[in-house]
């Protein structure tokens, strides 16, 4: 191998990369080698007949090894999920295509995508052939809009629709519905890095929308708001999956979106849970007795371009995702611009990001999970944070409400940073006197921890108590020079 082939980035010129043809060799389809190509996917050319097979192969490759409760090395065994199926549907391009592909591959009685020939709906191998047994007994999907209802009635009558809204995370009714542990409302003070929490009475703040607004407006940056919305959505879906006795939750994350998530997640401090960006197993209520719910992204090998053309050629109606004002300024939006440009000019690079991240593994074992995002908790986050940062602590008076505990040690690096990292562009003007409500699962975790600690004599080892300015001065007074 020559020295050039190893690729010295400083020597490799733009010119050699730039004018390269976007496809290899011939304009004929690389699969059937007969038809004229219609789409270029990362330098490979496909015709319109072979394109559906390309997508279904990719979906099956990402999904099927994870359908059976135990990962089978042999693919000959029939596929049988241990529970129902839940598909997350936002109305965006990715989930629109996901819903279409999953319903065509698994929920209709044909096992292959044949959009060119929609009249052929016959199941292969006879009605009772094991291949035609449904993989999942029941499927449902979730949404956040009225427009989706009519789409459902038109196209997906065999699916049950469960509407979810962001504010449900703060709604006691929803929490009871999904079978969450009884919990008092907990609010935190985001003006301090220790994030002291306290119980609030339900009458203080009962309107879920008002609580959601209060939560989002407490966040210091646009990036933090994007993160919070993503975490709320993910946990709303996971809890709904538990409620519907689903073994699988599928999301429509394309290869392009996954790469965007990976890069922005790392830059936001989520590196420890990077594997969970691609796929995760969630243990409801942290009990190891029940089977975990698998969150799978079956489209993680399919680029946004393929999604777009699939939607176009199949006349799928894409409702479009809701856009949040100010969202353009977050890390996620900036990363998106970068990755989308990269994907056009160097189409293979984007899959390299996903493949590289798939090889990453955290150095240390997780110490439980974050109470806010329920992803693995990295050990020693707070020690590390206090070593690397200079903190300005604002003087504050002790609050009269019963003090619970500092949330900081219970949060992953990413969530803690989201809640506390202020920049010159900070948008929140939250004051200490307006406590920020937490989503119900986080409150429930806190309540559970406090119950355990109250019984346990060594409990106060856990509790970081907030002390008043004078009390603190008294305790350290003799060391002060003044």
């Amino acid at each position, binding site marked *: 191998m020559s020295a050039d082939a190893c690729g010295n980035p400083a020597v490799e010129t733009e010119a050699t990369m730039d004018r390269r043809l976007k496809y290899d060799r011939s304009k004929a389809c690389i699969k059937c080698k007969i038809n004229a190509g*219609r789409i270029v996917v990362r330098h490979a*050319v496909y015709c319109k007949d072979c394109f559906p097979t390309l997508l279904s192969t990719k979906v099956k490759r990402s999904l099927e090894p994870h359908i059976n409760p135990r990962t089978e090395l042999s693919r000959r065994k029939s596929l049988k999920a241990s529970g129902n199926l839940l598909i997350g549907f936002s109305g965006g*391009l990715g989930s629109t295509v996901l819903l279409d592909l999953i319903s065509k591959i698994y929920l209709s009685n044909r096992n292959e995508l044949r959009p060119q020939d929609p009249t052929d709906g016959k199941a292969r191998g006879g009605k009772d052939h094991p291949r035609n047994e449904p993989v999942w007994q029941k499927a449902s999907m979730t949404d956040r809009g009225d427009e989706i209802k009519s789409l459902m009635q038109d196209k997906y009558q065999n699916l049950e629709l469960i509407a979810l809204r962001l504010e449900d995370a703060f709604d006691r009714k929803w929490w009871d519905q999904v079978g969450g542990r009884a919990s008092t409302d907990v609010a935190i003070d985001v003006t301090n890095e220790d994030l002291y929490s306290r119980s609030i009475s339900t009458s203080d703040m009962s309107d879920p929308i008002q609580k959601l607004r209060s939560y989002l407006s407490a966040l210091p940056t646009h990036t933090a708001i994007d993160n919070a919305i993503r975490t709320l959505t993910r946990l709303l879906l996971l809890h709904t999956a538990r409620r519907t006795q689903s073994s699988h939750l599928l999301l429509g994350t*394309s290869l392009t979106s996954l790469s965007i998530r990976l890069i922005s997640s790392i830059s936001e401090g989520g590196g420890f849970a990077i594997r969970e960006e691609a796929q995760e197993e969630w243990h409801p209520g942290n009990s190891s007795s029940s089977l975990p719910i698998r969150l799978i992204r079956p489209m993680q090998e399919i680029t946004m371009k393929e999604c*777009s053309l699939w939607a176009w050629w199949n006349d799928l109606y894409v409702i479009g995702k809701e856009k949040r004002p100010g969202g353009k300024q977050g890390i996620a939006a900036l990363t998106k611009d970068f990755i*989308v440009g990269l994907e*056009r000019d160097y189409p293979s690079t984007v899959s390299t990001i996903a493949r590289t991240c798939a090889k990453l593994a955290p150095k240390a074992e997780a110490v439980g999970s974050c109470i806010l995002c329920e992803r693995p908790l990295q050990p020693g986050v707070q020690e590390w944070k206090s070593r690397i940062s200079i903190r300005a602590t604002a003087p504050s008076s002790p609050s009269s409400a019963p003090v619970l505990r500092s949330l900081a040690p219970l949060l992953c690096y990413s969530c803690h940073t989201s809640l506390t990292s202020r920049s010159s562009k900070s948008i929140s003007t939250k004051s200490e006197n307006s406590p920020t409500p937490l989503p119900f699962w986080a409150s429930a975790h806190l309540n559970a921890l406090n119950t355990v600690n109250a019984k346990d004599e060594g409990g106060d080892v856990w509790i970081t108590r907030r002390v008043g300015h004078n009390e603190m001065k008294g305790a350290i007074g003799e060391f002060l020079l003044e």
Partner: protein
Amino acid sequence: MSFRIMWSNQTFPPTLIMSSITLRVEFGGGLELLFSNIKQHKLTLPSIVPSNNGTKLNGEVLSGGETKPADVEYLMHHLRDNLLQERPELFMEDNTVRPGILVLINDTDWELEGEGEYALKDNDEVVFISTLHGG
């Protein structure tokens, strides 16, 4: 046959040879919002256009300046200068479409057809699809 073509080239003045081509243009994936929310457009372009993609002299005699057959690059400039209602930066960037916009020429990925350099023919159909409204 070749004789007749040579003959006509020599006989007619350049302005008369200059014909026009009719195209169907369609926007998808939300891109139509930039174009008065109209998805399908039918338009006519001169078959010979300025090499610098100037759209101001539309349909007039192109004496002097360099010319080329109307191509997709010219079409993009034409759409931007004549049909686009708002925010041109969401449609074009650096003389081509913004990353994240797919182009189909007669239902085929334009990357197979030479992208912006594809010379348009009468009755061609060109589709612009935005992939950017979420995933």
